[in-house]
């Protein structure tokens, strides 16, 4: 038994084991889950920064079961096992009274197994195998959430299946071009055909990271699926996996040049994802749904960073992925804490929970300032790296990133204000702080946010820089950013966010509604100018404009949904009904088809012969 097989086999067997145990034996399941995930954590940390290769006899045709551990995969493996362990710990308390606890644990473990498999596989076909396996657990994890979760699960399944299909084709094409399916041996220049393969693979990767336009299931899942699922898959694991594969594609398998149009394509996708998702987030009135749009928006930064194809951008993107896994996971866990204790996540109803749940609030604040990019927390450093790279490739990208940052800050001010500050409603008088099992993972993640921020030199120099290999030689990315102009801009933006929030609160007297006005704060110069030139009341008109914009974005969002859900299905079902009509039960018609077919076949053969 090779040690590389353990992170795949242990969770898988444990997951299957849990399915066989009666759903009444709760402690055994929790124990098994914790034990299995903890073992995986230990194994993956012991494998950390080591290199190993393991090959089983294959079946020929280039399909070989090769496992390969090297720097990047060991790093992703450690991160995903650690997060799985923390989520499992959290679930012990969170899922205590839930009927679906058994399935959840089991799917979680199987997911972990597939993730380990996908990260460790060196052969594209086997990676695809694990990758597709994740589809199943994704479906299962969403579907167990509630009675209506079925639709969301189907939606997620369909979207991911379509993109996985693209990836399958991409893998076929890559294998055809490179002559091998082993990732470590593939190194392609971007010929036209290779570009197609590249795009197909990128579609698979960014869809796994739920970037636009493949994101639309995430907000729905935020409402329907169990909350730990959100913290586990969309917030952390899928980002790790998707960005891992994206960086594999861009760094190892294809030689992506900074000047190429593909790089610009990636950056445009990143920019659009940042701005559109964050704008959607602004208008949300639900804790979890708001977070879920941020989960999408943050992917944009990573894609933007990697898409620049500059060493500094790639470092920033990967560092951001790591940071995002921490603070976004932490944020979702605080959401779960609120949901568990207060019984709702509706921001209109919540308020003033700061006194009742101080530790949760503290974790929330740390994670929120991290995601908003306040120094000296981790999000600040990764975002600065990305800004630097984006500015080098074009000021527009920088502007978009900065704008996204502004909206992020504004929406988190709104969220924090609405949930934790303000007036406490009467029905929440008796709310208490969560138990330590739920607080511990949050606290650990929040602590990590601080550590990775203050001591950012360690992760950047030791974890991320080696991934780039030769490209990063001679650069230094750690420490406080050297370009103070950029830092200044960032600080200005943050300050502006706070000011606009205060104005909004003053205007409306409520944290939730504060944001409605802040959209149109003067910092958004373009929109502001436009509004001022044409209209009297910049706030009111701007509100209408932006809400119209938001509505259009919403419509686009729905349109994408509609294409996925309705249009294709209607066409296919129409055809199906037509076929039913033609099978009218008359055997002479069938005889006629057969004779017609026979004539066609013979005429074709004779004409070709």
């Amino acid at each position, binding site marked *: 038994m090779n040690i590389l097989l353990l992170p795949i086999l242990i969770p898988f067997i444990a997951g299957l084991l849990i399915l066989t145990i009666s759903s009444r034996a709760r402690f055994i399941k929790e124990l098994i889950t914790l034990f299995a995930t903890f073992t995986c954590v230990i194994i993956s940390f012991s494998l950390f920064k080591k290199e190993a290769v393991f090959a089983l006899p294959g079946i020929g045709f280039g399909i070989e079961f090769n496992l390969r551990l090297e720097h990047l995969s060991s790093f992703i493996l450690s991160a995903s096992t650690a997060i799985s362990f923390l989520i499992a710990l959290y679930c012990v308390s969170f899922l205590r009274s839930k009927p679906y606890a058994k399935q959840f644990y089991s799917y979680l473990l199987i997911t972990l197994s597939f993730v380990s498999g996908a990260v460790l596989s060196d052969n594209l076909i086997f990676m695809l195998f694990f990758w597709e396996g994740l589809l199943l657990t994704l479906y299962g994890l969403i579907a167990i959430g509630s009675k209506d979760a079925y639709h969301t699960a189907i939606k997620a399944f369909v979207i991911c299946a379509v993109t996985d299909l693209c990836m399958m084709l991409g893998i076929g094409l890559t294998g055809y071009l490179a002559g091998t399916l082993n990732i470590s041996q593939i190194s392609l220049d971007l010929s036209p055909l290779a570009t197609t393969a590249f795009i197909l693979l990128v579609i698979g990767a960014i869809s796994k990271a739920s970037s636009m336009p493949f994101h639309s299931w995430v907000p729905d899942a935020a409402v329907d699926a169990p909350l730990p699922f959100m913290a586990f898959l969309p917030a952390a694991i899928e980002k790790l996996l998707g960005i891992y594969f994206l960086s594999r594609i861009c760094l190892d398998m294809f030689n992506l040049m900074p000047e190429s149009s593909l790089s610009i394509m990636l950056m445009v996708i990143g920019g659009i994802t940042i701005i559109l998702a964050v704008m959607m987030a602004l208008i949300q009135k639900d804790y979890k749904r708001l977070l879920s749009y941020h989960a999408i928006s943050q992917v944009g930064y990573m894609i933007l960073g990697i898409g620049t194809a500059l060493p500094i951008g790639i470092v920033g993107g990967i560092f951001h992925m790591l940071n995002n896994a921490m603070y976004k996971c932490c944020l979702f866990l605080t959401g779960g804490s609120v949901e568990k204790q207060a019984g709702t996540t509706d921001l209109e109803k919540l308020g003033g929970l700061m006194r009742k749940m101080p530790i949760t609030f503290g974790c929330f604040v740390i994670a929120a300032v991290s995601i908003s990019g306040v120094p000296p927390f981790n999000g600040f450093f990764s975002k600065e790296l990305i800004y630097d790279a984006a500015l080098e490739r074009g000021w527009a990208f920088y502007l978009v990133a900065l704008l996204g940052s502004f909206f992020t800050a504004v929406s988190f001010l709104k969220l924090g204000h609405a949930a934790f500050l303000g007036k406490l409603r009467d029905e929440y008088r008796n709310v208490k702080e969560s138990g330590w099992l739920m607080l511990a993972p949050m606290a650990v993640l929040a602590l990590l946010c601080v550590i990775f921020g203050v001591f950012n030199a360690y992760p950047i120099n030791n974890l991320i820089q080696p991934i780039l290999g030769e490209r990063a030689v001679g650069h230094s990315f750690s420490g406080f950013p050297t370009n103070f102009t950029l830092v200044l801009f960032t600080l200005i933006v943050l300050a502006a966010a706070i000011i606009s929030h205060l104005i909004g609160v003053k205007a409306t007297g409520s944290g939730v509604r504060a944001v409605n006005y802040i959209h149109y704060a003067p910092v958004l110069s373009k929109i502001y100018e436009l509004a001022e030139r044409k209209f009297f009341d910049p706030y009111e008109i701007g509100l209408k404009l932006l809400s119209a914009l938001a509505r259009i974005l919403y419509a686009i969002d729905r349109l994408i949904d509609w294409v996925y859900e309705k249009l294709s299905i209607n066409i296919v079902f129409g055809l199906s009904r037509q076929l*039913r009509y033609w*099978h*009218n*039960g*008359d*055997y*002479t018609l069938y*005889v*006629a088809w057969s*004779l017609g077919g026979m004539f066609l076949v013979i005429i074709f053969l004779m004409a070709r012969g």
Partner: protein
Amino acid sequence: MTSVNPYLFFHIFIVTIMLFVMGFYCIFFTFNLVRALIGVELLIKAVTLLIITAGYVTGHMALAQAIVITLIVVEVVFIVVATGVVIGLHGHNGTLDTRKLRNLKG
């Protein structure tokens, strides 16, 4: 017998095709189950003729005869089973009309 006239084979080929047309026409345009089976029988006759001729033309008459004998056995069993089904249908429908056979569709 020793010399084979290629034109004879050609004529037989034409006759076979004519029999095919008759058989298929019968299957298509009749409204009677038994007559549809008679159409099938005509088709089998045409094939029998073709095989025998092929044996005769190539000089493998023994093999052709062996094949046709097996074919006749198959044909008889086929017809017996088919008429059994027709009689069963008549028992259920009370008629031999093929237009009553549209219960299964879609």
